[in-house]
């Protein structure tokens, strides 16, 4: 067959047959973890799309591999490479890892032949003239402006009819060339990026399109006298004829849906094309559609009814199952006629679905085609590879090629409502378009091996820096079981913020000081050990007098348990006044205590000093009250507050007065110090609006056990976007650790990792925005399917599996990708030797 396209102008494709096709690039609709009601909405949009298509059309779903350089470009964004060498090193290392992962994305393409009306004969004549002139080497006249205008109007009308959520855009000639090249290179992972709409809109001649050499059955691989076994050679060898490509051939097997299930197919659940990536195979699909109005279909049905009656007559008296088959056909015909009678707006969709798998050698492509047929068979669909028609089916997947007899033979019939239940234009993309490479999307299924995703899997990026520019919060919270990978995730995100030139403030409650160790592996951090301090956290010494006084009052009020309007509260307020502090040369909380005890004339000052000395004289109070310690240098990019040994009250102890009254000094101090740390972190992170800063609280309950801490974190999430600041939280239970509804609701990025406890899993799912009551299988997804233990150990390639909700509300499944530089990967791990060995 001749290359169909003779010229491409705008999104119009002129072909040898004289037919002009209009091409569009469509976006898939989000169809990941969704409630049934939302899925029904997506199905209805598909139905509207099918009803908008006139007559014949071709819908394509293509697996395009992601170029590692593009991934790195997304990681770099607008960063200045000279300002973040560590991030550049990570990006360089990512090139190789992404090459192995071979992530992909699905590109959706719609091509519709335009009806030329009265100009049809002219177009055919023009095509013939074109063909002859081209053969003779003579120049051909381009399409006339009038013709282009008329066809452009038709294409525009088509575009207007496509539901807006598909974000249909006219394909450019450059994109058409990309499509043709993709068909040639399928399975070789050589795809370039789909050219953007704004580039490559110049018209293309037919010679711009690749002209491959097609060999049905790959006969050229053997000698001329070799015996051909057609049944064993049901594939097509596609050889590029471009210079330099002589040694590379793509072996492609095309399969067509030959038989469909007879009965009713459930929705949701029957979205076979929408879920095709779950097969774990890289499959391109093409749907050759013919949409017909109900009046026309009713006539066809009438003819079918007459034929059916004739068949009853012909087969009367036959002793076989034939009559039973006729009965079933009659039932279906009656039902089909009733559907169309009851709804005059319903249309008939005849669809021939061709699927293509490909590889670099014939044996692999044979295996792939068997696997694909087996996957379809599990849903009662039968795929066929008709002998001798591989080339014909390859052409059938190309826009500009008329539907041939073979395609019509395999056409399956349903209504637009029925076809829409296949939800072919579905994606489960999550995340931002650039930023940190957070995870690989495993919505198709878990990773099969360290470098082997299940089917074409996109990558998930997290861009807290860009969130500020988009006026949304970039804060993130991770919820999961012990050892599920929360800390690893938070370290990855925090590490990338640091590497990208941002700053981090971390609270570390672990005995081993894992965050301090981790930060030490990345940079030269300032580590403040609360019980053995080398640096002071005295707010009067850290900040200017006005700010310091305000923070100090916030710290002392819960510590001393004084009411703001009580006598002690009023004294505290009076002495913590910037002017008062300056007048009495009070430069720190230590000197404040001394002042209250010896030099203050206010009534009750000595009592207040005595009360403060309860803490200032103790070891645990040194970090705030010891004037001999140097104040913490807040300009450091990484500050870790190591708070191991600090005791925190339980929530009940804070909420119930009788328990509160019995609370020990350690708990009172611990609670106030965490509130102070939160306050310091917020002030510091909010200081520079041009530099991203993150406050990392791995065990959020340490901060959120006090109302002050909850308020600080809530304010952080609420206002962070205005100050280029984010908070990264780790928790076991969102209901318990994020006690405020506002806090729970405001965190835009939510990650749920493995939870073996059912109730905690339910809490996490609800927080994520899913309803486990409506779909109880979601609970199993969290308790059994995320990072499952096999033989007492989670296999390395299953670690870090999670459900992710991004700032747009899209929910998907992913696997956190470790930092690519091994030393950083190891630094982030805390699971002992086995964990380190997995790095």
């Amino acid at each position: 067959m001749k290359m169909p396209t003779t010229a491409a102008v705008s999104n119009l494709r002129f072909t040898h047959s004289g037919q002009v096709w209009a091409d569009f690039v469509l976006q898939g609709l989000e169809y990941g973890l969704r409630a049934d009601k939302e899925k029904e909405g997506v199905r209805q949009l598909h139905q509207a799309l099918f009803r908008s298509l006139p007559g014949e059309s071709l819908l394509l779903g293509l697996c395009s591999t992601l170029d590692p350089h593009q991934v790195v470009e997304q990681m770099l964004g607008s960063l200045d490479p000279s300002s973040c060498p560590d991030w550049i090193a990570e990006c360089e290392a990512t090139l190789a890892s992404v090459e192995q992962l071979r992530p992909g994305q699905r590109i959706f393409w719609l091509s519709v032949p335009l009806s030329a009306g009265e100009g049809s004969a002219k177009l055919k004549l023009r095509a013939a003239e074109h063909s002859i002139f081209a053969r003779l080497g003579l120049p051909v006249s381009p399409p006339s402006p009038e013709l282009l205008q008329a066809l452009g109007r038709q294409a525009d009308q088509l575009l207007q009819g496509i539901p807006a959520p598909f974000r249909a855009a006219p394909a450019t000639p450059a994109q058409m060339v990309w499509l043709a090249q993709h068909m040639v290179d399928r399975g070789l992972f050589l795809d370039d990026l789909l050219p953007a709409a704004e580039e490559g809109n110049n018209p293309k001649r037919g010679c711009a399109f690749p002209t491959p050499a097609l060999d049905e059955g790959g006969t050229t691989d053997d000698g001329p006298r070799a015996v051909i076994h057609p049944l064993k050679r049901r594939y097509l060898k596609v050889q590029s004829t471009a210079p330099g490509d002589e040694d590379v051939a793509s072996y492609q097997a095309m399969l067509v849906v030959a038989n469909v299930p007879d009965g009713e197919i459930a929705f949701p659940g029957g979205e076979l094309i929408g879920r095709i990536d779950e097969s774990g195979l890289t499959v391109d699909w093409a749907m050759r559609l013919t949409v017909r109005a109900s009046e026309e279909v009713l006539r066809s049905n009438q003819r079918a009814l007459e034929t059916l009656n004739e068949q009853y007559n012909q087969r009367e008296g036959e002793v076989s199952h034939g009559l039973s088959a006729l009965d079933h056909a009659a039932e279906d015909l009656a039902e089909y006629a009733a559907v169309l009678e009851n709804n005059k707006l319903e249309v008939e969709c005849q669809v021939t679905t061709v699927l293509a798998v490909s590889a670099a050698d014939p044996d692999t492509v044979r295996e792939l085609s068997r696997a694909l047929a087996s996957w379809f068979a599990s849903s009662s669909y039968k795929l066929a590879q008709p002998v001798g028609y591989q080339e014909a089916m390859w052409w059938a997947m190309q826009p500009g090629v008329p539907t041939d007899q073979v395609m019509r033979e395999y056409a399956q019939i349903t209504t637009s409502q029925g076809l829409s239940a296949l939800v072919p234009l579905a994606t489960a993309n999550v995340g931002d378009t650039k930023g940190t490479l957070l995870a690989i999307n495993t919505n198709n299924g878990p990773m099969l091996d360290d470098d082997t995703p299940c089917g074409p899997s996109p990558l998930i990026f997290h861009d807290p820096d860009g969130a500020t520019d988009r006026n949304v919060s970039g804060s993130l919270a991770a919820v999961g079981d012990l050892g599920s990978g929360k800390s690893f995730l938070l370290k990855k995100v925090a590490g990338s913020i640091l590497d990208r030139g941002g700053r981090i403030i971390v609270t570390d409650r672990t005995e081993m000081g894992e965050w301090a160790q981790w930060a030490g592996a990345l940079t030269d951090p300032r580590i403040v050990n609360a019980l053995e301090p080398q640096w002071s956290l005295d707010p009067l010494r850290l900040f200017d007098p006005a700010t310091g006084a305000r923070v100090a009052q916030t710290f002392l009020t819960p510590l001393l348990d004084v009411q703001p309007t009580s006598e002690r509260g009023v004294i505290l307020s009076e002495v913590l006044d910037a002017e008062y502090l300056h007048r009495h040369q009070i430069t720190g909380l230590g000197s404040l205590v001394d002042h209250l005890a010896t030099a203050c004339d206010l009534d009750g000052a000595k009592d207040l000093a005595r009360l403060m000395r309860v803490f200032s004289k103790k070891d645990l109070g040194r970090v705030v009250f010891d004037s001999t310690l140097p104040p913490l240098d807040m300009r450091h990019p990484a500050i870790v507050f190591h708070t191991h040994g600090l005791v925190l009250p339980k929530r009940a102890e804070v909420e119930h007065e009788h328990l509160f009254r019995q609370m020990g000094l350690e708990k009172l101090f611990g609670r106030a110090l965490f509130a102070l740390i939160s306050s310091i972190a917020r002030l510091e992170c909010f200081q520079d609006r041009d530099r991203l800063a993150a406050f990392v609280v791995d065990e959020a309950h340490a901060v959120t056990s006090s109302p002050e801490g909850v308020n600080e974190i809530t304010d952080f999430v609420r206002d962070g976007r205005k100050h280029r600041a984010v908070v990264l939280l780790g928790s076991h239970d969102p209901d318990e650790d994020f006690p405020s509804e506002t806090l729970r609701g405001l965190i835009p990025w939510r990650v749920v990792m493995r939870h073996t406890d059912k109730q905690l899993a339910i809490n996490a799912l609800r927080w994520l925005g899913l309803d486990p009551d409506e779909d109880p299988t979601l609970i199993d997804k969290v308790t059994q399917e995320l990072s499952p233990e096999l033989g007492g150990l989670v296999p390395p390639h299953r670690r870090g599996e999670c459900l992710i909700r991004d700032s747009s509300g899209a929910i998907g499944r992913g696997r956190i990708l470790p930092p690519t530089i091994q030393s950083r990967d190891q630094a982030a791990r805390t699971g002992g030797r086995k964990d380190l060995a997995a790095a």
Partner: protein
Amino acid sequence: MKWYTRARKFPQLIGRTPDGTRIPGGPYTYLQVAAGVGMAAVLAATTGLWARGALLFNATVFLGLTVGAVYLAGQLPPGMRNPLLGVAGFFRAFGRGYKINGLSLPRLTRNSRTALGLVTLFEVAAEECATEPEPEPVVVEIAPVPGPGRPALSNVQRLLLGEQS
């Protein structure tokens, strides 16, 4: 959802003659009828080649081959597939070599594309004639963003979906 292919594409058989008489051994598929008639016609037209024996022998061969052709055609699975396409495909599968732009080539050479490809030159730059509408940006984005200004479904589309909405 449901597929209605079975309602319109069912195997068609011939079991009776136009006057209603039942055909012995029937019903037959169209292919069986075609195979039987075709075989009989071929045999009848080529008697000079094969009918060298006695009448009884010749009749037996004639009937045997015709019935054999009908029987073999009956062994093909009944269904909607056009058997002629299947036969044609089988012959196509025995073809050898490459096809480039509709032309056959036993093997590729360095100049294959130049020799067989078409290079079309337009007389006037087609850019001057293009009056396409301003395209909307099409970047395959990972992050979902709300659609453009248009509503999800136009009023007409809502009307078309009226029975559900």
